[in-house]
C-alpha cells in the first residue's frame, strides 16, 4: 500500500502541472537548485552536531543515560536508543536530525528502534525555536500556557510514534 503513495503522488503533481499549462520542466530545474540551497543551509549545523554527538557516543555517555532511563520508558514502548533523540528534539532541529540518523544507522533503518526514531523525527518540530521566533516577531510578552502545551504535543508525538510503529508496522 505505502509503495503506491510516492509514485502516484509524483505522477499526480506532474500531471496537474502539465494539464494546468505550467512549464513543468523549467519549474523542476529551478526547484532542484533550491534543494541544494537547503543542503547548504543545514551543512554546517549538521557537521558540528554530528561530530560532537559521535564523540559523546564514543565516550559511552549516551548508552549509560539510555540504559539508566530504560526501566522508566520501556514499559511505554519507547526503546532506550530513542531517548536521547526525545530529549534533544524540542531544542535543536539539526541536533535531532544528527542523533536520529545515528540511531537509524546503528539500529538499522528497518528495525523497530530505527523506525520509531524516524517517525519521531517526522511527527515533531523544534518547539522552542518556533516559540522563540513567533513570540519575538509579534512582541508577545507573556506566552502563558504555550510552552507546556507545546511540550505536551511533543511528548504525545514520541509515545504515539512508538505505539504507531508497533501497531501499524507490526514490529
Amino acid at each position, binding site marked *: 500500500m*505505502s*509503495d503506491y503513495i510516492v509514485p502516484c*503522488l509524483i505522477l499526480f*503533481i*506532474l500531471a496537474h502541472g502539465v494539464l494546468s499549462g*505550467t512549464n*513543468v520542466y523549467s*519549474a523542476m*530545474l529551478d*526547484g*532542484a537548485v533550491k*534543494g541544494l540551497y*537547503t*543542503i547548504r543551509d543545514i*551543512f554546517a549545523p*549538521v557537521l558540528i552536531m*554530528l*561530530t*560532537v*554527538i*559521535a*564523540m*559523546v557516543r*564514543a*565516550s*559511552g*555517555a549516551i548508552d*549509560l543515560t539510555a540504559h539508566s532511563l530504560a526501566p522508566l520508558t520501556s514499559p511505554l514502548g519507547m526503546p532506550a536508543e530513542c531517548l536521547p533523540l526525545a530529549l534533544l528534539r524540542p531544542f535543536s532541529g539539526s541536533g535531532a536530525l*544528527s542523533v536520529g*540518523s545515528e540511531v537509524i544507522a546503528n539500529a538499522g*533503518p*528497518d528495525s523497530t528502534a*530505527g*523506525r520509531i526514531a*524516524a*517517525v*519521531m523525527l*517526522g*511527527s*515533531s518540530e523544534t*518547539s522552542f525555536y518556533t*516559540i522563540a*521566533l*513567533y513570540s519575538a516577531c*509579534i512582541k*508577545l510578552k*507573556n*506566552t*502563558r*500556557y*504555550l510552552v507546556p*502545551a*507545546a511540550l505536551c*504535543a*511533543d511528548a504525545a*508525538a514520541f509515545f504515539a510514534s512508538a505505539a*504507531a*510503529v508497533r501497531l*501499524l*508496522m507490526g514490529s
Partner: protein
Amino acid sequence: MFMSKLLAVLLLLAVVFGALTGRMPEVSLAAVSGARQAVELLISIAGSTCLWSALMEVMNRSGLSARIASALRPLIVLLFGRHGRDEQAAEAISQNMAANLLGLGSAATPAGLRAAARLHELSQRDRIPPDSVLRLIVLNTASVQLLPTTIAAVRASCGSQSPYDILPAVWAASIISVCTGLLAAAVLRRVWRKP
C-alpha cells in the same frame, strides 16, 4: 547562545566520560569520523532533497499549493472561530498550514508570522487575550507533515528496503500530537487565569 552552551556541555561530557571509561582513543577517533559521516549523510540525502524541492516548485507554479490552501479554509474557521473568518488572517493561516503539510519549512514561516501578526491585531482590537495566536503557534510546534522527505532519504541512505513505509505511522503520530497540543492549550487556558 543556547547552541554554544549545549555544544560546550556535550563536549565536556564526552571528554570526562571518555577519561573515566578509558575510551579516549575512541572519542578522539570519533572527532574525525563524525565529521566524515556528516558529509556522507548530507551527500546521500542531497539527491532526494533536490528531487522533492523540484516537485514542490511545480506545485507552487501550477497552483496546486494554492488549491490545498483554499481546501483548508473550513478547518481554519473551526479552529479559529470568528478570527478564522477574517480574510487576511485566513489567507495567511491557510498558506502556513499548506506549506507545513507539504514540508516547505521556508515557505511556512513567513506566512505563519503574517498570520500571527494579524491574529494579534484582531485580539487587541477585540480586547481579548491573544489565545488564537497561541493556538497558531501550537499548530506550528506540532506541525503535521504529509511527506517527511528528509527522514525518508536518511532511511534510504542506510539501506532501508522501503524508506516511505513509515508514512502511515508518521501521520497517526502527527495527528495525535496536534490534537494533544490543542487539547492541552484549551485545558491550560482555563487554569492560566492571569492574563
